[in-house]
């Protein structure tokens, strides 16, 4: 009986426990409004000047700091919270990118490019909330965990040659930051699927339903990012609150079939698109777990200005058609759905124009009436995206396998004159530029060879560089890191930094499998701390609800990444070890053979032996032969004549005989075939 009762009790306990927990979880949702786990899903669409479309998915889950059982979550992915707990991550960002962000035509100043344009491959940085001496170990474990989580070779960042610890140039600067990139990592669906698994609705409902793999990966740029911040736990025993921000930025080319068929005059009309035409899917309802689920359509400043210009030319009616009642069907373009709200950017000092944001709420749509936003352009529009003050480019100089140079060229963009305009009256208008460059150890950079050219004039390094921090590379231990703060005059049109390097040699087993491709130098980061990429939208009341828009309002410095460089290093012929082994073995054999010979042999004894031998008799066989021949010839034994003949180097008689026999054989063969 007792035996029977005990399991029952246990069962009861379990049930009640779970029920209690459930209660607690719900209680937390119901009672304390600020302490619930939340999930937001948003999508931003933005037409780009070169007939492409930027789609930016933004998902945010947050877990509040909780006292007790942080192991159980309602919405928040468990894997992430465990990771944060275990590795004491304070802030972390992981991005998988394919393709290059085209800073020139897609802009470099808005919040989207400056925080979502990433270098090709994998980039990972993390700030740890741990004592200094533990950080490297934590980083290594973190890379392995992430590698398993995202099916990527992030674990290669474990080696100390692959990551670096920037001091102050990387924006979330602190001594506890580790930064590493893998420029060659290929990005594919196997990385996207685990990323999607972190979403409560995965890609089964809500905005993430749009993520049709073939159409995403057909894009021109694809960057999948995961950013998490843990808000420090206030008291002991409290698990930290975590905000997980997952973004996917894709640049797509809408099908321009119509454009190709059209005549030359119509060729310059932007392609029209709809969600179903670019993704092949529609949004049929929101993810029910999401707090908000919105789609935004953004017209950036340049485009708005251009559109208004067109309107003014056409008809001198209302001032601002874009926010008037008939906005969705204005002379320039037509939206297929009616937006729920329109936001106008708070005009900043910098420019008169403000970007316009249309908001669509998904809640209204469902299975029967799926949401499918479409845009139909009516007139050709040409505009430019807002550029970062300087356009950064990086390239290699020199040729040959011995040495080379890296050049970072900064070119002023036309739009930057606008930024400078307000400041240019000041006497000392200066533009601050931070440069952060990691160089692998086999590219041996000579930091003393740093040269600066401003407007094609060589300048003293100390005039331009305000602050420099260099940690030289150690062979096979750590990469070289260069952090620079440049102060450039605002009026500059171009600046070039060059630094020379020698190409190192690797040990044969350090070469990667495709060594002849060359070796990558990761992107340099050029940031402009005086410029902030932010967009503040009016009508702030509802913004609290939208993480995307509040993200836009954050004051983050404008950042841009340069190209990845490919340095051809000397590679050995990998079949060479075989040849080397063969040759060394031959040499060794010869050496040891002669050495043994010399050691073993006793010259005097040998001479004596030779004498003895000669005294005894001459070689047996020649003697026999000569005896035989002598017998045949009639007993004329001529001993001395025979040995000279045999000792001659080439016995002409025997050679003749061999030739004769060979000739006979050849003739025989030839005759009978």
């Amino acid at each position, binding site marked *: 009986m007792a035996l029977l009762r005990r399991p029952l009790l246990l069962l009861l306990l379990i049930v009640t426990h779970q029920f209690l927990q459930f209660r607690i979880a719900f209680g937390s949702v119901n009672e304390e409004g600020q302490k619930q786990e939340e999930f937001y899903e948003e999508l931003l669409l933005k037409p780009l000047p070169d007939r492409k479309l930027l789609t930016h998915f933004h998902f945010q889950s947050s877990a509040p700091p909780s006292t007790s059982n942080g192991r159980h979550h309602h919405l928040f992915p468990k894997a992430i919270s465990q990771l944060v707990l275990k590795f004491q991550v304070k802030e972390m960002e992981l991005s998988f990118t394919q*393709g290059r962000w085209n800073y020139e035509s897609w802009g470099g100043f808005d919040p989207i490019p400056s925080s979502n344009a990433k270098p*090709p491959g994998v980039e990972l940085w993390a700030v740890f909330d741990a004592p200094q001496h533990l950080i490297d170990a934590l980083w290594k474990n973190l890379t392995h965990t992430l590698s398993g989580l995202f099916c990527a070779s992030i674990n290669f960042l474990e080696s100390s040659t692959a990551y670096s610890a920037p001091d102050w140039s990387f924006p979330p600067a602190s001594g506890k930051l580790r930064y590493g990139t893998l420029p060659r990592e290929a990005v594919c669906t196997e990385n996207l699927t685990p990323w999607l698994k972190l979403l409560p609705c995965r890609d089964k409902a809500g905005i993430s339903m749009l993520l049709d793999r073939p159409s995403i990966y057909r894009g021109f740029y694809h960057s999948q990012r995961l950013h998490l911040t843990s808000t420090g736990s206030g008291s002991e025993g409290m698990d930290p609150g975590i905000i997980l921000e997952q973004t996917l930025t894709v640049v797509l080319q809408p099908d321009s079939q119509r454009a190709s068929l059209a005549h030359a005059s119509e060729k310059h009309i932007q392609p029209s698109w709809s969600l179903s035409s670019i993704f092949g899917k529609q949004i049929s309802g929101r993810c029910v777990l999401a707090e908000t689920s919105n789609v935004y359509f953004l017209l950036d400043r340049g485009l708005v200005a251009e559109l208004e210009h067109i309107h003014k030319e056409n008809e001198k009616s209302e001032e601002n058609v874009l926010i008037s009642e008939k906005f969705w069907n204005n002379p320039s373009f037509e939206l297929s759905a009616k937006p729920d709200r329109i936001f106008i950017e708070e005009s900043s000092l910098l420019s008169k124009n403000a970007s316009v944001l249309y908001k669509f709420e998904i809640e209204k749509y469902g299975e029967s009436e799926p949401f499918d936003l479409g845009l139909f352009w009516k007139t050709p529009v040409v505009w*430019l995206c807002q550029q970062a003050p300087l356009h950064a480019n990086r390239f290699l100089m*020199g*040729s*040959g396998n011995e040495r080379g140079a890296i*050049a970072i060229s900064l070119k002023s963009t036309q739009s930057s004159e606008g930024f400078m305009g307000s400041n240019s009256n000041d006497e000392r208008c200066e533009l601050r530029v931070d440069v952060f460059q990691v160089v692998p150890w086999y590219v041996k950079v000579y930091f003393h060879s740093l040269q600066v050219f401003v407007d094609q004039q060589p300048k003293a390094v100390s005039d331009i560089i305000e602050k420099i921090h260099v940690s030289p590379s150690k062979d096979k231990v750590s990469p070289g890191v260069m952090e620079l703060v440049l102060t450039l005059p605002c009026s500059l049109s171009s600046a070039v930094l060059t630094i020379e390097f020698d190409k190192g040699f690797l040990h044969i087993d350090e070469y990667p499998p495709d060594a002849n491709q060359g070796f990558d130098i990761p992107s340099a980061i050029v940031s402009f701390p005086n410029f902030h990429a932010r967009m503040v939208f009016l009508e702030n009341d509802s913004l609290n609800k939208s993480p995307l828009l509040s993200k836009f309002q954050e004051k983050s410095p404008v950042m841009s990444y340069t190209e*990845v460089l490919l340095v051809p290093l000397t590679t050995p012929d990998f079949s060479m070890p075989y040849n080397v082994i063969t040759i060394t073995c031959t040499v060794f054999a010869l050496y040891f053979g002669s050495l043994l010979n010399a050691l073993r042999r006793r010259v005097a004894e040998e001479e004596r032996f030779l004498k003895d031998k000669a*005294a005894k008799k001459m070689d047996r066989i020649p003697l026999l032969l000569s005896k035989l021949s002598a017998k045949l010839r009639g007993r004329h034994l001529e001993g001395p004549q025979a040995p000279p003949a045999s000792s001659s180097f080439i016995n002409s008689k025997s050679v003749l005989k061999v030739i004769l026999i060979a000739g006979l054989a050849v003739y025989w063969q030839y005759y009978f075939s």
Partner: protein
Amino acid sequence: MAETKEKSLSDEKPKPRVRPIVRLGIFLISHSFHVSVVCCTAGVLALFLLPVLAKNTYISENALMPGSASPMLSNQHVSDGNRLVKDLTNPNSKSSETGIESHKIIAQYMLDLGAEVSFHKFHPQMNQFHPLHFFSSPDSGKIQENYSCSSYGINTVGIIRAPRGDGKEAIVLVTPYNALKSGFGEALSLGIAYSVFSLLTQVTWLAKDIIWLVADSQYGEYAAVAAWLREYQTPKFSSLSTPNAEMCPDVNNLFELKGHSISGSKFSNSFRRAGTMAAALVLKVRDQNEQFEDTISIYAEASNGQMPNLDLINVVNYLAVHRQGLRVNVEKLWSLLNSSWLKSLGEIFESLAKVAKSLYPKWKFGIPATEYVEGTATLASSLYYQALGVPTGPHGAFRDYQVDAITLEISPKFSLDKVWRNDILLRGGRLIEGVIRSVNNLLEKFHQSFFLYLLTSPSKFVSVGVYMIAFALLIAPLPMVAASLYVDANSSSNCSKGDSSTPSAITDTDEHSFAIRSWRWLNSAKLVFIVHLWGAIVSLLPYFISRIPDCSPTTSFMIWVLLSILSLLTLNSVLASPLACAKATQEKEWALVKSVTISSVFIGLGLMSVINFATAEIGALLMVPMCLLAQPLKLDVRAGTLRSFCRMISNLVLGHIAFPPAAFFLLKGMLDGFGNANVGDFWMWVESLWAWNSATYLFIGMVQLPCWVLCISILFHTR
């Protein structure tokens, strides 16, 4: 009794066994005459056997996968290309005298495709003789004094960024174009390139960026490409007060283009770059028509006999022959095609091969006589152009930066109708597309296949392992002969002296004299050194002569010859009069001189074979017989036998042939006929050699000429 005699013999010489290797060496040295005859004939024979030994080419790099994808170039792209050809050949576009209009047209076409476009202005650099610039990597543009607005070229550069690539690598397509006097061929080549370019803006498989360089060839195709590459690889950032091209009024017209709608940010006047260059193709269409079928010629030789990776040629050959049905051609020496002796040699080889095959069916090394003749002609031209060390086209500029590049020249079967033009655009375009696609597939840079090879036909090659044999056989006798001469000279004088002196007087004096005698070669070495020094001076002289203004080639050449003779005489009298001082002591002085000469030639040829094999091979063919045969004429005259007479004759003939100018004129006469030979031609030739930094020039000046002088001095040796 015999045994006792034997015993006594062995008692006298308890022959200490000499090592076999040493014995072999001694044997070879003592039989050096036979060995050298055998080796030299074998070397020459091996050279003639090379076309027989050539292997079929094969694509070594698996990643290339040529022709595995069906071409995507359609008639739509061809008609695009045709449009450009029409616009360019339109007489209106040529109205402007600087040809800027056509550059604008090209740039506009590129912009319409969505490519990034920039103009690159350059001043043509005159090729000058820089004595210390041989082998040095190309440096950034030297500052030149006299830039003027009248002379500059404009390269139009269009870049397609690979949509999903990381932009680390790029493929370059070059079409030389002279806007001022462009033939139809050049326009057609632009049309082909444009049709490929327009396709490549749409494809999704692109992993490397594509750069299309329209090189302004009004100052030469090479100069334009080299200027662009110099700017690409080693740009100069500081412009120190040199007048810039931007200041010229004409150039600014170029940038009025950018008003166009979508161009927007895509056009910039700054220099644009893509990543590391993986390969480059230079595309040309010849104006002259081919009679039989559309052919495509491949030019591959870059400076100093460097060749691009064989895989690049293989890919082009494979695609052209098996996919596009074009005939592929490699440069040949046409004059050799009709030579009867080659034909008979080919027939001999063929019949020999037949006999061999009948003996043993697996011996299949024979090739038909006609094929042999063609192979030899191709091989000879391959050797000749490699030996010259002058690039055969604009692709040479790429090789200086370790980029594999070839020039493709399409010579179409000419007819004027539109169908034909579309056809050539389609086939040429598909060929280029296929090659670019193959290179695009490449994960690593070209490294799998051969870099050292000689072509005997577009699909046959001789690799370094085979052709080295011929050269090695040729120069193998040199050290042996040198050693045997040295030994002879020493021992003969030793004997003569030993005979005269009484055996009792073998004391320390004799030891002393022996020591002196064994160091006697130093005297000859001094002579050889002086002559080589003279050679260095002679090869430096043109640097000064070229500074003399208004000098015709003939007078320059004469000045050069005069100065050379003068310097030889001065050196001779100042440093030493070795020929004069020799008379006092030795009678076999010439043998020592010959021995040292031969060793120096051996060293020179060995070094040269590393730098430029073909030069060394041709040099060895000329110099080895001359060195080996050289003997004072007086001795031969004195001997009066048939053998010495033959030797004298051959000595005289070789002495004439091996003189570099004589060899040049002989070669020129053989190729173009002797009618228009001019003394100044040699000067021009030499000028071209140093302008291209060819190591052949150094070889001629510092190895061949001194060797010839030394041999001549041996011939006229008085004792």
